[in-house]
């Protein structure tokens, strides 16, 4: 009769290597074997020394009404000041924070929608500047030629090859659609221009 695998009996599986063999082969094997040597054991360590000399930190001045989760009692004393909300995307973001808690899918879905709107607003805005968005340089796609784009993929057993073709569509399709829209709009205008 064939040997019965481990989980069907009470025995424990045999070790492939002994502790001595592992210690000889792996630098530092077992130096943290004792949980007391592991810095996150136990998970909570009340009274841990952090360097803070305050019970509640001084408040950072709010330069604009800071959006906040409704699950917070107030705006936290310290916060980031990168990229204040602006435009239609900003209005969507403020709505998501004001209306929905973090527990609601709508909160996150509206924020994701605002991200897409923000990208569009920013692309359009960039065309009115001396440095319009450039999908070639900003995607870094030219590194395909300088950093072995083909040989990094061809003949390799990579699971991501089956979906990488979607990436150029995600990046390029909105630009193609915008171009198409511009052509259609121009043609329509020309058609309706008085002779």
């Amino acid at each position, binding site marked *: 009769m064939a040997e019965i695998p*481990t989980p069907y009996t009470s025995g424990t599986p045999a070790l492939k290597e002994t502790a001595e063999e592992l210690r000889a082969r792996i630098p530092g094997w077992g130096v943290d074997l004792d949980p007391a040597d592991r810095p996150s054991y136990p998970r909570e360590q009340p009274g841990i020394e952090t360097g803070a000399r305050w019970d509640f930190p*001084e408040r950072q001045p709010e330069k604009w009404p800071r959006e*906040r989760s409704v699950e917070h009692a107030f705006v936290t004393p310290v916060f*980031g000041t990168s990229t204040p909300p602006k435009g239609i995307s900003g209005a969507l973001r403020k709505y998501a924070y004001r209306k929905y808690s973090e527990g609601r899918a709508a909160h996150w879905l509206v924020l994701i929608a605002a991200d897409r709107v923000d990208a569009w607003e*920013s692309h359009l805005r960039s065309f009115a500047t001396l440095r319009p968005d450039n999908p070639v340089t900003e995607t870094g796609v030219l590194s395909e030629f300088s950093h072995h784009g083909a040989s*990094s993929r061809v003949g390799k057993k990579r699971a991501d090859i089956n979906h990488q073709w979607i990436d150029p569509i995600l990046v390029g399709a909105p630009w193609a659609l915008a171009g198409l829209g511009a052509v259609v709009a121009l043609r329509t205008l020309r058609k309706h221009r008085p002779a």
Partner: protein
Amino acid sequence: MRSMVYRGPYKVRVEEKDIPQIEHPNDAIVQVKLGAICGSDLHLYHGMMPDTRVGMTFGHEFVGVVHEVGSSVQNLEVGDRVMVPFNIYCGSCYFCSRGLYSNCHNVNPNATAVGGIYGYSHTCGGYDGGQAEFVRVPFADVGPTKIPDWMDEEDAVLLTDALPTGYFGAQLGDIAEGDTVVVFGAGPVGLFAAKSAWLMGAGRVIVIDHLEYRLEKARSFAHAETYNFVEYDDIVVHLKKATDYLGADVVIDAVGAEADGNFLQHVTSSKLKLQGGSPIALNWAIDSVRKGGTVSVVGAYGPLFSAVKFGDAMNKGLTLRMNQCPVKRQWPRLFEHIRNGHLKPSDIVTHRIPLEHIAEGYHIFSAKLDDCIKPLIVATSA
């Protein structure tokens, strides 16, 4: 100053920005010398993290020199060479005072479920990050630490996230002597988790990925047994067979939101953003750990729901443990491991990219070109 700027999904560029200012008495401004792109930065780059705004500067792994300090800062001086943990935290709230630095309640008005992280969307507090020449560092007396003289800057930058997160992931597994540990993902965090599992006495460490060059690194750097899941019809069944049908004692998910291996899961999350993350590795972890075993999750996921096989986790009596790593808690012990030669974090660095070429850096890392494992970003002024 020169600064990386997000321009929408898959697009970044370098722009001129104002040098950040002191906004709170315990702030410092740090001149960045060396930064890195983290695998989790790719979730932002791909537009997966809600409230990622055009114009934001990413980067939560960086070291540099103190350029300016606020009026209440006592522990740092201008000119100090510092390493900055990716967590922004106050040190005094309910959570910080218990050591849960990554769960600080005083630094992120945008969400209560996550603390503050440099350059990681407004969902993580709306702070600009360190892929720039200068960065604002809140709570300078709490987070940053002077880099020891003996420490290499490349090792120091990897101590700001990747190494502590991998080490923490192994700790979450509650590894006992002789345990079989499976690590999903042979990226920087997975490699460090595998290496750390040995320090905690694992008897067998198995790493799973689909990128052959990373599996080679897992063998040479982390002394691990490796399997490429593409070569198996069902990696879970293979792992069961490899463990005599028992399953692993501990499984670590070091992949997170953009896991590959199931087209539908990947596309609905990474491409269509209909899930908080692609839970392929997490589901494989649940299925390949033994009953009563532990699944440790250090791969990052977005806040939206994901299709996780929770029923199996419940029926198998699993312990699921997870968190963002409280980085600074790991440092004293990791410093010892580096000094004693047990760990050499910079061994995983494959690319050193000037800040001006960061768009190429993101593409190389995202598309896994050129056997890329860990790209560092060298600041313009460094």
